[in-house]
């Protein structure tokens, strides 16, 4: 029981030490602060703007099941393309 308690304490201590390592590392950053700002702004633009408004997945936006997607792609590669008018982003079939 004592060993178990010591084990829990030492693993908690290790977790705290790792956490402190990261917190302290981030706190001491100099150029890193600017870089993190660049990374966060970039990720925001990519995921909250580009992905959301301009880069919807073409098939996901139009079909719900894999079979529907498979049928559509099969149609695309076997049927003459003139029968399929080009679409605007997010347009309906």
């Amino acid at each position, binding site marked *: 029981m004592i060993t178990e308690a010591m084990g829990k304490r030492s693993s908690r201590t290790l977790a705290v030490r790792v956490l402190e*390592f*990261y917190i*302290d*590392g*981030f706190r*001491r950053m100099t*150029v*890193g602060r*600017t*870089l*993190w700002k*660049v*990374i966060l702004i*970039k*990720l925001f*633009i*990519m995921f909250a703007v*580009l*992905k959301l408004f*301009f*880069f*919807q*997945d*073409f*098939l*996901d936006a139009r079909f719900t099941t*894999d079979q529907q*997607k*498979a*049928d559509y*792609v*099969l149609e*695309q*590669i*076997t*049927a*003459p*393309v*003139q029968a*399929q*008018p*080009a*679409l*605007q*982003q997010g347009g309906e079939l």
Partner: protein
Amino acid sequence: MIENVNPAMVDWARAQFALTAMYHWIFVPLTLGITWIIAFYHTIYVKTGSEEWKNLTRFWMKLFGINFAIGVATGIIMEFEFGTNWSNYSWMVGDIFGAPLAIEGIAAFFLEATFFAVMFFGWNRVSKRFHLFSTWMVAIGSNLSAVWILVANAWMQHPVGQAFNPQTARFEMHNFADVVFNPVAVSKFTHTTSASMLFAALFIISISSYYLLKGRHVKMAKRSIVVAAVIGLLASGFVGFTGDEAAYEDAQHQPMKLAAFEGLYQGKKNAGLVAFGMINSGKKVGDDQDPFHFEIRVPGILSMLANRKFGSFVPGINDLVYGNAEQGIMGAAEKIEKGRVAIAQLDAYKKATKAGDAASAQAALSLFDQNREYLGYGFLEKPEDAVPPVGLSFNAFHVMVVLGTIFPLVFLAFLYYSYRGTLAEQKWLLAGGTIMFFLGLAAHEAGWIVAEVGRQPWAIQDLLPVTVARSNLTAGTVQTTFFMFLILFTILLVAEVSIMLKQISIGPEEN
């Protein structure tokens, strides 16, 4: 079928992908290569305990951090593009790419969350040995994560270990080992990583040369140069060796690419390699114009490169387009016919399955199977459509090769004058050294063009042309996002360059 495709949309989607990939490719090779050199610097510090080596290591680590931060996640944009602009392709390759890209993502996450943090935050806070171990793990891990992307890319160039499932319209993986140990993947990985090491060595030489010219951080610059030049020289040899392997793989699996980047229209025995020449960009396949305004060839070398045998026959563009019965080469016209049979049988299979006619479905599937390896050709309108842009492929290949020949001489010169102890007096060499980074970047981007433009018109070699891989979108939609990316990438590049230049001007003492 292809005449009905909206070519403007395909061109804009390709331009957008090229823009994204080439921008991403500014950062990736430096990240892959410089981690090794930093690991060597760090090892020397741990062995010697010298504070000067420690400052040197921290300085290059900081520049690496800037490059990594600006470059990180730019590759994700390509995944957005796959889903939006290239949805047919995305759907068809999902089963093949799922595993490698998932492994890459998980490996990158754990690497970045653990060893990156220890490498950057660990100074004086973890043991020297564990810190050094982390630096090496960053080098090994980042290069290993590149394996999976290159496996995916190599599969598009040489689609092995797969079979097309006509029910799901997907290429399904049948043999993971075949995909991972695809000979094209092996040559791509070794060529890319060794070229990245060479590029990182040039980056270090450029900045160190600048310091020596300015008379600043002289000791650090000289030490940085010696290690970088030794690694760069070794990497140069390996780049040459793996480049030879890459050309051999091209000859075996993508002979049209090899013919295009050598401007070889008429196949021949004992074919020569163009050492220097100006290609005639007005030449069209099948016309009588001379392919070159002038050229100097080294006899027999192309045959050796392509087949590992002097005097052997290397097919030219005309042989591959129009066929060469004497050499047993099937022309693109015959492949188009077989491809059209494959598509027609795919359509017949689809209809028979829908109608519940099992016998007809089986018959259609059997005929499809006999012609499936030519599937992609069925989408081409005419044999000449199987030819990539020859001028661009030729110029990109020769820029890459010429620069790749100059770099080892540069490393040798830096090592020679370092050995003589007169490097700081060689202003001409240092001035040249400052631009080496840009030449290295040009060589890398040219290499990307050779690999990706040279394989046109294929998204997947012989199986899926880019005109069919695309989404059914209007050109205007893709144009809008192209210019958005152009602006975003320009801003990010300006941000990187300004942060990087500021740190270079501060130098290592301020760390």
